[in-house]
C-alpha cells in the first residue's frame, strides 16, 4: 500500500535530480568552453540559474497538472479503491466490449426485484382466486340444491294438480 501522490512527487524529484546530474556544471562548461574560459564565474552563475529555472518550471508544471486534473484527489481515491479491493485475488472483471453483455449485471438486480414482486402478486392472486373458486363451487352447490328444491316443489304441485284434476273428474262423474 502506497500513496500514489507521494510516489508521483518522488518520481518527479528523482527525474529532476537525474536530469540535473546529467546537466552538470562540468558538462555545461564543456559545451560553452569559450565562455567558461573567458568568464568562469558568469558561466557558473548562468548554469546555476539554468538548473534552478528548469527545476522550478518542471515543478510548477506538475503542480498545474495536479491542479487541472484534480489529480491528488483522484489518485487518493484510487488509493482507497485499491486498498478496499486488495483482498480480491485473481483478475477482476473488465468490460467485455459488448455493452449489452456488460449491462446484464447492472440491470439484473432490478429485474430480479420485479420478478419477485410479480411472483408475490401472482401467488397472492392465486390464493385469492382459490378462495373465490371455492366460493363459486359452494355457490353452485347451493344453486343446485335450490334448483332441486324448486324442482321438487314444482313436481309436487304439478302432481297434486294432476291428481286433483283426476279426482275432480272422478267426482264429477
Amino acid at each position, binding site marked *: 500500500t502506497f500513496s500514489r501522490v507521494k510516489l508521483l512527487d518522488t518520481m518527479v524529484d528523482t527525474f529532476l535530480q537525474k536530469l540535473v546530474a546529467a546537466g552538470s556544471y562540468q558538462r555545461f562548461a564543456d559545451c560553452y568552453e569559450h565562455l567558461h574560459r573567458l568568464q568562469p564565474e558568469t558561466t557558473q552563475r548562468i548554469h546555476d540559474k539554468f538548473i534552478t529555472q528548469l527545476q522550478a518550471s518542471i515543478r510548477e508544471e506538475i503542480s498545474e497538472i495536479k491542479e487541472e486534473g484534480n489529480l491528488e484527489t483522484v489518485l487518493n481515491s484510487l488509493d482507497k479503491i485499491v486498498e478496499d479491493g486488495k483482498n480480491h485475488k485473481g483478475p477482476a472483471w473488465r*468490460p467485455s466490449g459488448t*455493452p449489452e453483455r*456488460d*449491462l446484464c449485471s*447492472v*440491470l439484473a438486480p*432490478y429485474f430480479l426485484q*420485479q420478478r419477485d*414482486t410479480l411472483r408475490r402478486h401472482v401467488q397472492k392472486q392465486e390464493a385469492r382466486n382459490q378462495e373465490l373458486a371455492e366460493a363459486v363451487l359452494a355457490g353452485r352447490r347451493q344453486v343446485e340444491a335450490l334448483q332441486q328444491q324448486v324442482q321438487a316443489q314444482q313436481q309436487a304441485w304439478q302432481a297434486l294438480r294432476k291428481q286433483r284434476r283426476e279426482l275432480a273428474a272422478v267426482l264429477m262423474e
Partner: protein
Amino acid sequence: FDEVIVDIATKRKQYPRKILECVIKTLKARHE
C-alpha cells in the same frame, strides 16, 4: 484513437447509470 478510447471509457462509466434510471422508470410505470 485517444479520443475514441476516452469516449468509450466515458460511456462505460456513465451510460449504465443512465440506462438504469430509464429502466427503473420503465419498470415502475409497468408495475403501476
